[in-house]
């Protein structure tokens, strides 16, 4: 009874906030709606006996991530463009999304009242222990390897984010990885061979093809007569 009322409150809040995220004109308000959506989803997690996850959701999403997003908005400015104009592409998107929604919702609504209760044993464990101990046990036994991989992923993402958004100062190359001859895989011997081949090719060119400047006549794009006049 109480549980269902709380569910409806949180569900309504989260759906309204999600609609606000997508449809509000100002992106700052969208970010604030996003906080509301994250917090009400944390409430949904509590209803599902996931207390640790609810706190993690509040800390990581509700506070950390939205602050990062707000920083992103502040860096790029609160820009308005003609978002409200409904284009043909947007109409198509609405059609696809509404078809998908009702394709899921109509079959699901048929089973809405065939209730699967929480297994009573699990309910007892959750009431006495909470989910945190069990979750920690799962994370460090069964999921120990994915846990370590996730830490490497976070480190890589951190370094990558710093590198991508780093400001490039004046005089600095566009890319920090640049090609220089000394870096090339060519050995000195091979480079010497290449240079001697090029010089011998230039020397073997017939003398009558060379004009007065000493280079190839075909490369002079200005006719000689116009220069003399």
């Amino acid at each position: 009874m109480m549980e269902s009322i709380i569910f409806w409150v949180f569900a309504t809040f989260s759906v309204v906030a999600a609609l606000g995220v997508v449809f509000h004109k100002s992106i700052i308000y969208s970010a604030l709606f996003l906080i509301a959506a994250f917090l009400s989803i944390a409430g949904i997690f509590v209803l599902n006996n996931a207390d640790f996850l609810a706190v993690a959701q509040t800390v990581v999403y509700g506070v950390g991530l939205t602050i990062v997003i707000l920083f992103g908005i502040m860096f790029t400015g609160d820009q308005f463009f003609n978002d409200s104009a409904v284009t043909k592409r947007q109409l198509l998107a609405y059609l696809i999304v509404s078809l998908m929604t009702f394709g899921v919702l109509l079959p699901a609504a048929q089973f809405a009242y065939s209730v699967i209760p929480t297994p009573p044993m699990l309910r007892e464990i959750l009431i006495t222990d909470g989910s945190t101990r069990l979750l920690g046990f799962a994370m460090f036994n069964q999921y120990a390897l994915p846990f370590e991989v996730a830490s490497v992923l976070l480190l890589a993402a951190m370094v990558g984010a710093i590198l991508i958004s780093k400001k490039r100062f004046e005089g600095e190359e566009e890319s920090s990885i640049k090609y220089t001859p000394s870096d090339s895989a060519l050995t000195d011997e091979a480079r010497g061979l290449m240079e001697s081949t090029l010089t011998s090719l230039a020397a073997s060119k017939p003398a009558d093809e060379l004009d007065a400047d000493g280079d190839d006549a075909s490369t002079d794009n200005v006719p000689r007569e116009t220069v003399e006049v």
Partner: protein
Amino acid sequence: MDFLTAHIGLSHYLILAALLFTIGLLGVITSRNVIRVLMSLELMLNAVNINFVAFNNFLAPMYGDHFLFSGQAFAIFILTVSAAEAAVGLAIVIALYRRYSTVDMERFTALNG
């Protein structure tokens, strides 16, 4: 107001997650601001998390004599990955803004022939 006091089952949570997911998908497809697209993406990931947690609560698998918490463990991994994704995504947005001075999706046409 019968439905307000009826027992809340698994499918209530699944329907809520489907609604949030499709709203997020709508935002990803229709909005032109890159940051709004990122926010809608986070909404979609959260909807998936609701699914995981609800399934874990109602259909927790038994392993020997104890329950497995796979659903919540996966939800935590999704949390981690989405935090990493948001950090890299916003870094890309800032780099794009330096290059084009806009966050309008329609203006990023450098590869458009």
